[in-house]
């Protein structure tokens, strides 16, 4: 496509235009996925509770996400008196923006990635560790006790679980030999990492639930005690950006699980009649079901239980497993020598 445009806008312009088109495609697809993730969630929850779920707006209730979105567009954004207006409005924008920029390094298929950088895994880790700022800033700028309590809980929770996520990622890197996400996927062409590293995948997934503040770790927003936690003061589009960001982060963590453990775009059992991006999407769909299933099934953790799980169970376990994997790779001489 870049070659086709070169005679009209020059080489730099063509590269720029191609990149812009790629970003636009990813963003539009993501927003659609996010809208239908809310529908998926409501349907799964309804099935778990023997209800029907949304079924009135459009066939099978398929237009429900659109109706919800339109409603939020038409509402008024209220900035409370006593709030810090700049930071109050910056927080949702930051949350949503960070949820979007992380996708720039996720490979959707062979060569199908916006920015194929060599430190892709670290980039994702850095971006996900920034997510906490949107929440802390929102909690502080709202000038409300509920919001502040939610933000405090969130800061402790996200910092704690990041540590074990870091060790899980290091273990995957030991097996793949590269920080480039495309190469991590290619390293799984013979054996998906979910087989030798299955316990680490579980640790990663559960830490992912905690990172995205999802049930059973949703005591950041816990509606029964903090009303809605850090975004209690938000309305209309500012609220919608938080909501979008949360669901986008769910898709992102599912995408990371898929890339790191489930072979990314690789087809299972040699079923190559479907293209790579479709397989990638299907795997994300399956991992997302895990998120919704956990929400429908498990009661909320108490704060001390959350800290105990993160620091006393996941952290020692992931360090031990990492040392064991490194020892095994060195002992058998199978340490990858990638770039």
């Amino acid at each position, binding site marked *: 496509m870049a070659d086709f445009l070169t005679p009209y806008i020059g080489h730099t312009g063509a590269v720029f235009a191609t990149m812009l088109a790629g970003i636009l495609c990813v963003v539009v697809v993501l927003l659609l996925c996010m809208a239908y993730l809310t529908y998926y969630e409501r349907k799964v929850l309804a099935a778990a509770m023997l209800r029907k779920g949304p079924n009135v707006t459009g066939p099978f209730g398929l237009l429900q996400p659109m109706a919800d979105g339109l409603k939020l567009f038409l509402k008024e954004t209220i900035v409370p008196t006593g709030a810090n207006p700049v930071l109050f409005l910056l927080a949702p924008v930051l949350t949503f923006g960070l949820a979007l920029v992380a996708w720039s390094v996720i490979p959707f298929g062979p060569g199908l990635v916006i920015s194929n950088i060599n*430190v892709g895994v670290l980039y994702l880790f*850095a971006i996900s560790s920034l997510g906490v700022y949107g929440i*802390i800033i929102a909690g502080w700028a709202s000038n409300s006790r509920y919001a502040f309590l939610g933000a*405090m809980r969130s800061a402790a929770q996200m910092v704690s679980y990041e540590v074990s996520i870091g060790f899980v990622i290091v273990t995957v890197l030991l097996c793949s030999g590269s*920080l480039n996400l495309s190469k991590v996927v290619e390293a799984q062409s013979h054996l998906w990492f979910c087989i030798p590293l299955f316990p680490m995948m579980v640790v990663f997934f559960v830490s992912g639930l905690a990172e995205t503040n999802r049930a059973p770790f949703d005591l950041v927003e816990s509606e029964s005690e903090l009303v809605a936690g850090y975004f209690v003061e938000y309305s209309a589009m500012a609220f919608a950006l938080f909501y979008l960001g949360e669901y986008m982060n769910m898709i992102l963590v599912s995408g990371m699980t898929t890339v790191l453990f489930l072979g990314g775009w690789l087809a299972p059992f040699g079923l190559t009649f479907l293209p790579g991006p479709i397989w990638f999407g299907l795997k994300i769909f399956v991992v997302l079901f895990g998120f919704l299933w956990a929400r429908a099934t498990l009661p909320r953790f108490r704060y001390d239980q959350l800290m105990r799980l993160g620091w006393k169970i996941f952290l020692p376990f992931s360090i031990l497993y990492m040392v064991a994997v490194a020892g095994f790779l060195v002992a058998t001489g199978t340490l990858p020598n990638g*770039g």
Partner: protein
Amino acid sequence: MIIASLLFYLFAAVCIASAVVVVTARNPIHSVLFLILAFFNAAGLFVLLGAEFLAMILVIVYVGAVAVLFLFVVMMLDIEALAITDTLKRHAFIGAGIGLFLVVELVLVASGWVASTGAGASVLAIPGNVTNTQALGALIYTHYIYPFQGCGLVLLVAMIGAIVLTLRRRPDAKRQDVATQVAKPRGVRLVKVPTGSGV
């Protein structure tokens, strides 16, 4: 390339400007947020230098962990915008003295600085097909292994020290013993209820 130099001036200018605001801002929370902005722009400068590994580590360690804890602590303290008091004025005088001393020292060092003749060659020491993550790893885990492990030990000692200094054993604290709680008590039976029929 012109875009690279434009980006350099952008990152450098924002970095210095936000560093200045860190010191001058009245509200400590704004200070921390501008500190984060300064970290970000420093990371951008690293990327321009081709040191993407350092850039990412800077963001992960400083922005993702250290600054979160700063913000956490500063938000917990109930500080309103600082008023300029007499003590602050007295301290400002000492601070200005130290600052002046540092500036003079820096100027003296910078004016006497001459690049060594081999400096240009050592910049290009990494061959093009090796990523800088690999190059860094190959150096710090072989040539600089003892200083590197020494740094790690210092951090470990500091961490243990911080825990020892702040840990209090409180006799009245309630603790949860998960094993006893999860263990099945007598007389309780688990029943599988068929879907849709009730007990």
